[in-house]
């Protein structure tokens, strides 16, 4: 249904151009506008800024984020993963934090950028593309609508990979591949270049958004892991820029995060 709406809007968008002055195109746009609504329900509009919503006591269970599924790594990956977590915990007891990429202002990438601390995300939705901007580190991802996904091996590995989307009723389904293996995964999990992220983004109630994220990685995971992020609309919020040009945290010779103090 949604794809139909997307097609309609694409044609109507011609009216925004000077081509609209051409009588033949004007007629085409009008015809589509009047014939389509009976056939195609418009998908929801996610455009706007969304703040992290944690639910909490007394929250409507319909809009609160449901519990996450278990993260089950294959044994050969679970062992070093748990060892690293143990080292981090030991360092914490000593009052130290071990180096992280974020402490060096390296962005999070997909899917972690979808929820960083309490920073909002902004959706800009058009029929052809949904653009998602995370305020933390000003990360941007683009979801191309109604186009086929590329083969994983044809996507240059990066922080955001390649995302394509389609409407499944009122749910935006986003498929992402091509996240490079150096980008930490969900809860810092390792992942292979075979990782595929599937998101089902929907509004469980007016003013709320859910992003159900499923990570499938046949190399690293025993089975796909699913978790859901919840957001609440921030109607008047203007996104704040985040350019990491004054990072005073550095990594010392022992791999520990330190803060640089100034003498003057």
């Amino acid at each position, binding site marked *: 249904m949604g794809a139909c709406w997307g097609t309609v809007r694409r044609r109507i968008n011609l009216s925004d151009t000077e081509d609209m002055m051409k009588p033949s195109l004007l007629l085409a746009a009008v015809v589509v506008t009047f014939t389509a609504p009976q056939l195609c329900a418009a998908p929801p509009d996610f455009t706007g800024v969304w703040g992290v919503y944690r639910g909490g006591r007394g929250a409507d269970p319909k809009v609160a984020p449901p519990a996450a599924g278990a993260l089950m790594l294959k044994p050969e990956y679970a062992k070093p993963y748990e060892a690293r977590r143990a080292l981090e915990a030991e360092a914490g007891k000593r009052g130290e934090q071990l180096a992280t990429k974020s402490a060096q202002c390296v962005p999070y990438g997909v899917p972690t950028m979808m929820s960083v601390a309490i920073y909002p995300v902004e959706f800009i939705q058009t029929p052809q593309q949904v653009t998602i901007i995370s305020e933390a580190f000003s990360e941007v991802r683009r979801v191309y609508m109604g186009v086929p996904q590329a083969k994983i091996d044809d996507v240059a590995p990066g922080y955001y990979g390649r995302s394509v989307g389609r409407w499944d009723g009122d749910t935006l389904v986003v498929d992402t591949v091509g996240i490079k293996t150096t980008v930490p995964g969900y809860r810092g999990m390792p992942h292979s270049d075979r990782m595929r992220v599937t998101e089902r983004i929907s509004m469980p109630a007016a003013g709320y958004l859910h992003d159900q994220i499923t990570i499938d990685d046949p190399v690293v995971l025993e089975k796909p892991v699913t978790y859901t992020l919840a957001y609440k609309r921030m109607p008047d919020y203007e996104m704040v820029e985040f350019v990491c040009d004054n990072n005073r945290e550095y990594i010392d010779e022992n791999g520990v995060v330190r803060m640089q103090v100034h003498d*003057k």
Partner: protein
Amino acid sequence: MAGVLAAASPLLAHHSFTMFDMSKRITLVGSVTSFEWTNPHSYIEIDVPDDQAGTTLGGIKHWSIEMGSPSILMQSGWKFSSLRKGDKTTLIINPLKNGKAGGFLMVATLPDGRMLGNGPAQNQP
């Protein structure tokens, strides 16, 4: 539910608070040498007369105080112009554990008397 989500996403954007002694509070009364409205953190650089908070350096001890990012600070009423060079201010901070003259802001008293915290909730830079 909060615990579940906490496991799913970074609680802090940039780094943890481990380097600060969150159980200790120090009050600094001094003169702002710069207010840096920057990412990933904002900073108050402040000269504090030597009768406060430890060792001296020519009668003045200089401190670097870390805050949340501008986005976080705006949620508790801060603006880029809330402090200016030369402003007299009082800061309550959690000091660095390593003894260096730095810390994490808990609350600042501005020249106009307003008291501003470090974001909508403590520990959210």
